[in-house]
């Protein structure tokens, strides 16, 4: 059994999230963690895990540092609240679009071989490799004031939505693709031979099998879109109550003098972290339930 290229890419892109447990000689055995090698490995991993966990804990700590009241007022303040709502709405929208389009693209890549599909494969990876500031300016070049096609989305929510679609493109595609590749065609052929039309086959047989991958791709897109900064900040004018989004507020507060802004920034950050965590945890639960039933 060999690992195919898109799978590796998918794993790297999607971080291994939600790739449904596959049939791979699933003996989850392993060596006990003793001895020099195990310990040193463990130490390495521990040290770096601290690099991730402790600072995040500090954020949550700071958010609640002056009490629940300050936390609550920081996130219900009209400006912050509007920004949070916009951020979440954009992220949900992007997740949904990606769930659909990601599946379409993955389907086309896997089931339809055509000239240029290799190019398509390659192009899909580009947004993942691009620095966010590059993505931001790329968007501005086409959709900003100096747009050669006379489309000006600067300072608009649509512009922000398009920028987010750009950076989240690879996620859903790369989670659905490996599943499609490994899909057992027997059931589909059986259904077709019984007279089911292709759309029905897709809807009743294929789609349910793709759901875990689609939802994990959507969840990743959601999490990414929630915290996006570099690609959004150039096309958004960050106008309060209109195009201001969460990460730009957090950044602004970090520049302000005094301690209260830092606390507010931490409060907003905590909300974003919780939202991402919630979505990913729900996803994990959902997939485990689906795995049990499928």
């Amino acid at each position, binding site marked *: 059994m060999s690992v195919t290229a898109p799978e590796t890419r998918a794993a790297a892109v999607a971080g291994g999230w939600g790739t449904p447990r596959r049939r791979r000689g699933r003996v989850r055995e392993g060596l006990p963690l003793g001895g020099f090698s195990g310990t040193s490995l463990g130490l390495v991993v521990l040290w770096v895990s601290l690099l991730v966990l402790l600072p995040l804990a500090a954020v949550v700590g700071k958010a609640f540092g002056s009490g629940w009241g300050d936390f609550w007022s920081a996130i219900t303040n009209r400006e912050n609240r509007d920004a949070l709502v916009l951020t979440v709405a954009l992220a949900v929208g992007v997740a949904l679009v990606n769930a659909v389009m990601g599946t379409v693209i993955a389907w086309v890549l896997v089931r339809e071989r055509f000239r240029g599909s290799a190019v398509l494969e390659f192009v899909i990876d580009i947004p993942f490799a691009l620095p966010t500031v590059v993505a931001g300016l790329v968007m501005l070049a086409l959709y*900003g004031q100096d747009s050669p096609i006379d489309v000006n989305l600067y*300072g608009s929510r649509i512009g922000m939505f398009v920028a987010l679609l750009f950076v989240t493109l690879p996620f859903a595609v790369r989670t659905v693709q490996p599943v499609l590749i490994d899909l057992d065609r027997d059931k589909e052929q059986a259904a077709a031979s019984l007279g089911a039309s292709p759309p029905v086959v897709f809807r009743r047989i294929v789609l349910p099998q793709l759901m875990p991958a689609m939802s994990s791709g959507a969840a990743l897109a959601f999490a990414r879109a929630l915290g996006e900064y570099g690609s959004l900040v150039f096309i958004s004018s*960050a106008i309060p109550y209109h195009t201001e989004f969460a990460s730009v507020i957090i950044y602004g507060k970090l520049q302000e*003098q005094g301690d209260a802004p830092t606390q507010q920034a931490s409060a907003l950050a905590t909300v974003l972290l919780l939202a991402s965590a919630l979505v990913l945890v729900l996803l994990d639960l959902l997939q485990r339930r689906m795995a049990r039933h499928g």
Partner: protein
Amino acid sequence: MTSFLARRRRVAATVAAAAAVLVGVSACSSSSGSKTVRLVAYSVPKPAYDALAAAFGKTSAGKGVDVKGSYGPSGAQSKAVLGGQKADYVSFSVEPDLNALVKAGKVAGDWNTGPTKGLVTKSVVVIVVKKGNPLGIKGWDDLIKPGVKIVTPVPSTSGSAKWNILAAYEHTIAEGGTPAQASEYLKQFFAHVVSRAQSGSQATQQFLSGTGNVLISYENEAIAARQAGKPVDYVVPEQSVLIENPAAVTKSANKSAKAFLSYVESEAGQEIFVSKGFRPALAGAKIGTVAGANDPANPFPTPAKLITVESLGGWSKVNDEFFGDKGISTTLEKA
């Protein structure tokens, strides 16, 4: 087999050592030699300081000196230096940002006793409009007409914002109005503000990118934009505030930094500032033609009513009165 393994181990060890060295080196590379001037400044004078550093490098005192600049919103930069960012030469938009450093013991208390009283540049608050002034803005009162969208930074981080708000408020008083009327004007002014820029130059960038249709900024920033070929015009309103930007060397500054400050305050340095659109702080400095000004031959007209912070009681009083927790601006902004 042993040599193979030994080789591999050596490679791994070398890589690890190299990584450690790199981290160490990068940590050390931020140490200052006596020929490095760490400059921490507000956002808009970057082109001017770039030119000043180049010219300074050609003088005998400045030979081989490396000016490492850091630019950002005035308040945020002050906060950074307070928080430990190394600085030899600091240049802020408003005096309170420098005073914070004096209070923290980073800058000597006699910074403002020199020939230019610690100032390096002056300017006035102007109204920047799109080329051709399509809205026909002539002064402050035009700004609260319907359809006007004002771009100005936020006072919590930006020095430019403070100058702008001060000018907006005080212009009413200068016209003969009462504080109540001035407050009312400022309230309407805020209602027309559409931006959330953190610094003067960010506000300029937002305006140039298409936010709003009017920008309040420094005269030098308007001139700089025009020098950069941007399609803008600016109006020097009849009432404005005299902008005075302080700079100083820190207590830990080296000789090169002190020499740089002297250069900046000298005739030669001031001339470079002037060429970039700043009004000089040195009395008697030569003002030639300034490209980009409304009238290059007479680049720095005096507004009919020029308000100074001194006449308002000094920055400490003004900062509290307007931008303190219960300040006029702070309260009205939230309204």
